[in-house]
């Protein structure tokens, strides 16, 4: 990234987001980066600790994306991800977790027109519960939330276009 003689610049949220994306796209086990006062440690192992760091050091576990997910490949995307850009609305309690769109597409709440929706507000869901469909050019992919808990909010209307990273649901973890 920056060559060493460049003075370190304030690290912005987008930078961290970009780093997390690089890490997610890689087959690395962990990544440790230090620029001036800024330090980030990413690992696929939830118990991992930064090398030589005190337990208080910032450790951001990588999202439980591809590696740990036994779901079929077509439906593996869309785990709650720290890459989600939009700040949660103010009335969303901090412990609720957003399920975001894995890519741009059209959001459908039910498997087909007229059918029962995959989920409703108040419903208990598990990591493997299908929450909605995301359609791209007639290719429908069921999205799993990856969280055990209760659906607290459905943020998008049936048939709306959603963008990558847009919150679709908020789930209160069990």
């Amino acid at each position: 990234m920056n060559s060493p003689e460049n003075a370190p610049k304030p690290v912005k949220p987008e930078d961290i987001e970009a780093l997390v994306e690089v890490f997610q796209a890689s087959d690395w086990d962990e990544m440790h980066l230090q620029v001036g006062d800024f330090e980030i440690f990413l690992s696929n192992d939830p118990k991992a600790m930064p090398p030589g760091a005190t337990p208080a050091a910032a450790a951001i576990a990588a999202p439980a994306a591809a590696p740990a997910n036994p779901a079929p490949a077509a439906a593996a995307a869309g785990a709650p991800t720290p890459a989600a850009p939009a700040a949660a609305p103010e009335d969303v309690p901090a412990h609720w977790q957003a399920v975001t769109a894995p890519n741009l597409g059209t959001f459908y709440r039910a498997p087909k027109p007229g059918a029962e929706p995959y989920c409703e507000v108040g419903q208990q869901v598990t990591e493997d519960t299908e929450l909605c469909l995301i359609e791209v050019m007639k290719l429908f992919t069921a999205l799993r939330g990856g969280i055990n808990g209760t659906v607290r909010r459905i943020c998008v209307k049936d048939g709306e276009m959603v963008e990558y990273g847009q919150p679709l649901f908020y789930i209160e973890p069990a």
Partner: protein
Amino acid sequence: MPIRRLFVANRGEIALRILRSARAMGIETVLGVSAADREGAGPDAADRVVVLGPAPSAQSYLDARLIVHAARATGCDALHPGYGFLSEKPELARLCEEEGIAFVGPRPETIEALGDKMSARAMAIAAGVPTVPGTDHIADIASARKAAADLGYPVVMKASAGGGGRGMFKAATEAELDASFERASREAQAAFGDNRLYMERFVEAARHVEVQIVGDGEGGVLHFGERDCSVQRRYQKLIEEAPASAMPDALRARLHEAAIRICAHARYRNAGTVEFLYDVARQDIYFIEVNSRIQVEHPVSEEITGIDLIACQLKVAGGEALGLTQADIRPSGHAIEVRINAEDPFADFRPSPGRITGWEPPRGPGVRLDSHARAGYLVPPFYDSMIGKLIVHGHDRAQAIDRLLQAIAAFRLEGPRTTLPLAARILDHPDFRANTITTRWLEDRVLPGFAATAPAADA
């Protein structure tokens, strides 16, 4: 029907360039970006921005279905692919066609036919356009030896599905051929999933010249003069200029005529570039390929003709008449472009992404900057390293060189390392000023020893 709302399926300077022409024509714009490109001069210039997917291009800029879905869902009636990414993938053009979205480029079948070098070569031959003496597909090393003996060494092996120099090897002797044949075949298979190779005579002193054209899709083709892009490293262009002033007028006329002939034959639609190899010793030209997109170096043609080529593209895609005849296109003066890549030319062109901390581009008569960069912009590590293009126009080549050197000297750019110091070295070199360079000049004569001239570390 003129375009009402345009989807721009690209990033960086070309996205911004397209957005500006579209806006000037009163066309609404939607820009599709990856999560890494949410903010910047491109998004600021678009009427609407949609985030396609995460930063890796495979999940954003290279996903044709995602892009066409986004274009349709945002109500766009046309799509500009820019250059690179999916611009020359027939799949994107075909999906647009199926969805009733005007693709700002050639028909999918044209892109397909020109994308395969063998079929492009066959098209050139059918149109009576000269090609480098060469062969059809070569199946094995024995046929390669025989073909090389017939053509005369040195020869160059190329991947049929290749491009950008990959899968391409030169052999000066039969021993080299034996060694390079297997390697070229393997590399072609690995890079393109297609191990077919063909062979051409290698031209020792070659310049790269190309003709900018715009076709109406019905066989009508206009040319916008030629460019010389002989300053190359590993088949990547670094500096481009227009016109190709080293070429005699009679040969230049043949060049334009050949470019028009092949594009008329292909009933080419929209903007394209016909690339030729200029054999300086024989004073002859050979067709290389047609690039079925707008190219990085289109601004030098715009500068000498005074015509907005992106606007031409949008008009053709919208079915509008260009309102131009060949006689209206009168090149004047000389234009040169340097690509500004975030790479360290003193350290083997190592990528140098990162935040731009200082950005004060030069201004002045005849100086143009096509760039999405600005102070505070983070050059993301996911995409190609080009952060802009500095272009000058002068009344002749000597003035253009001097203006460009002054512009580079006045450019304050801090943060990433860039190729600008190398560009200055090239422009001020006696061989470049004398215009005696070839496509191997940079690598043979300038780059060796260049790293040793690095300024002391500014730590």
